[in-house]
């Protein structure tokens, strides 16, 4: 009998092309997602060295990072130009590189265009048990369907394009088990913010985190993608959630997913991937779901998490001197005083979107809070950015767009938007944003912008009151 293995070890073992004596292995990559920002230099490298893409059939390109989220076509259906010349040049490069190298390409006006990490699972291009890479750290997202997925740099993008492999050192394994039921108003986003607060921004470094436990099993695929998406914010290379009936039901019938007899064979294989009884992890963290409140960040690291009922911490309260210094710096940047109640912090901007929270369930959660309400007068800018054209169409079919618009929010075209200040959607310097994105780094949403990470329902609640708000006060 073979040694019991974790989900991670099973996926790793199934992808070893060549084991090296130093412990590294050449690992086969099943799916490569490409976007406009981290790929131009990789394609240029291929061209310079006269190399081709080894497996264009396993590669999918879609622009998302710097496409504007304002309308892309005029009333007559003609494509509108992108006004920023640098963004336009990056998009043009991808548009030229994809056909030149024979890669599948979803263009900026295609109905299924969207954020690459929303599009992959939605199209069934991402599959359980697959190795998936993309030149973007939030590739960890695809772990929500049980894929070993991680972000890579541009040199590695070029390496995968040329060889369909990566030379990797096996990661350590970490289990984060969340047991029990979460309370009302607590979403997948609150679970992952809470986890990041507990383990810290470097807590998962060198590890792949498998999220287990009844609170994780109870989540939809949308929620699981949210959890795994932010594995990187805890420093982990990747997140994983074992594929189960929820996963199979989500993937069945999607365009690139296996069909008929192939589907049955695939499901049988995917079922075999779950961590064996008796397998051990290098590190285990257990969290009681009942301890998780709707959560919010106060600082400039995603580990700076408190319950919405909490207060801004005093830097002196941290044991680690370097954390004390970092916290003091964060508070200065954030313009916050220790002891301030989080619920007393006003916000002028609301961003509902990003690869963390732009799927249909996120749209529904935000709309449920906003229905019949309007945004507060001090909220100057509030945008809802669906993760893909398909999410947008679904939301519109359900009338969610009307709820947002009636509440005074803007309903946009899909893209990465205000998550990263690369496209026109930015938060002005010195202003706050209740944001459903994944990073509250200095300058992340624009130079000087102050980000508070929250769930979609919490962002909607903040839009209504004009301050960080406990969404439980607005729901039954």
């Amino acid at each position, binding site marked *: 009998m073979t040694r019991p293995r974790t989900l991670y070890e099973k996926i790793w073992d199934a992808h070893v*092309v*060549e084991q090296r004596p*130093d412990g590294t292995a*050449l690992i*086969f990559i099943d799916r490569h997602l490409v976007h406009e*920002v*981290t790929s*131009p*230099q990789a394609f*240029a490298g291929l061209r310079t*060295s006269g190399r081709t893409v080894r*497996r264009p*059939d*396993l590669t999918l390109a879609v622009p998302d990072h710097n496409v504007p989220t304002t309308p892309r076509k005029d009333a007559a259906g003609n494509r509108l130009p992108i006004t920023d010349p*640098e*963004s336009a*040049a*990056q998009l043009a490069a991808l548009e030229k590189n994809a056909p030149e190298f024979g890669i599948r390409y979803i263009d900026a006006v295609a109905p299924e265009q969207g954020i690459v990490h929303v599009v992959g699972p939605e199209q069934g291009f991402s599959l359980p048990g*697959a190795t998936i890479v993309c030149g973007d*750290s939030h*590739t960890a997202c695809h772990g929500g369907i049980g894929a070993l997925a*991680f*972000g*890579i*740099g*541009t*040199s*590695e993008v070029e*390496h995968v394009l*040329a*060889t*369909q*492999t990566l*030379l990797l050192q096996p990661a350590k394994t970490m289990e984060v088990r969340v047991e029990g039921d979460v309370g009302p108003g607590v979403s997948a986003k609150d679970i992952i913010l809470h986890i990041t607060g507990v383990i810290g*921004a*470097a807590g998962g*470094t*060198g590890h792949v985190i498998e999220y287990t436990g009844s609170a994780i099993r109870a989540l939809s695929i949308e929620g699981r993608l949210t959890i795994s998406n932010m594995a990187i914010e805890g*420093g982990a*290379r990747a997140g994983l959630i074992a594929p189960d009936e929820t996963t199979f039901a989500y993937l069945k019938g999607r*365009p*690139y997913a*296996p*069909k008929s007899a*192939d589907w049955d064979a*695939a499901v049988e*294989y995917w079922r075999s991937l779950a961590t064996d009884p008796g397998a051990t992890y290098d590190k285990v963290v257990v969290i009681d779901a009942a301890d998780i409140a709707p959560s919010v960040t106060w600082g400039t*690291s995603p580990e700076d998490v408190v319950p919405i009922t909490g207060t801004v911490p005093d830097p002196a309260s941290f044991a680690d001197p*370097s*954390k004390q210094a*970092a916290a003091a710096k964060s508070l200065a940047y954030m313009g916050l005083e220790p002891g301030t109640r989080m619920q007393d912090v006003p916000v002028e901007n609301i961003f509902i979107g990003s690869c963390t929270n732009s799927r249909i369930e996120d749209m529904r959660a935000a709309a449920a809070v906003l229905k019949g309400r309007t945004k507060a007068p001090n909220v100057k800018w509030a945008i809802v950015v669906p993760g893909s054209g398909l999410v947008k169409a679904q939301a519109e079919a359900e009338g969610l767009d009307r709820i947002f618009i009636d509440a005074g929010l803007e309903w946009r075209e899909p893209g990465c938007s205000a998550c*990263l*200040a*690369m496209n026109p959607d930015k938060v002005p310097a010195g202003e706050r944003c209740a944001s459903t994105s994944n*990073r509250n*780094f*200095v*300058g*992340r949403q624009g*130079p000087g912008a102050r980000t508070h990470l929250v769930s979609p329902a919490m962002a909607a609640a903040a839009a209504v009151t004009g301050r960080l708000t406990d969404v439980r006060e607005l729901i039954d």
Partner: protein
Amino acid sequence: MTPLNQVEGRAIPLGLKNVDTDVIIPAHWLKTTTREGMGRGAFESLRADPDNLFDRPEYKGAPILIAGDNFGCGSSREHAAWALGDLGIRVVIAPSYSDIFSGNAVKNGILPVVLPQAAIDRLLEVAATDPVSIDLEHQTVTTPFQDRFTFEIDPFRKMCLLDGLDEISLTEKSDAAIGAYEDRLDAERPWMRPAA
């Protein structure tokens, strides 16, 4: 890639922990299709302060950067490594790095040295006034005051840095093994090919 073995010079005593790649190079500098010139945007938010470390005469062009835990966390952007390289930095010394950043650094001829916080604290002190030396072959960091710290590094990364190797050319030597794996995958899990 330029080979790297011995580096001696001033070390920028940044010392901060959780320095993310958005701080190293903000996203608006990523709107380019080449690798060059990123140094201009490096540490932009920190350098907005006229008294910042990077632009002090003694640290201009310094080949070494000393930082705190979890250096290079966040975004996978290799632009962070390009920006450091363009600033002239060949070695970063920190207690820990994000996994993606350390890989990107090595691929761009930048050595990420891992030392415990106590050693970092001592080096920060030295760097305020004096140069620091790194010897990759012998895996040491030394100072003019007889401090000597040894560090661990993955042998493959060490070889790549010492020889300035191009990883794609190395992997291409495994072409037959990759082909054999692809055949096996098609036989065992034919449904892994995208259906459409």
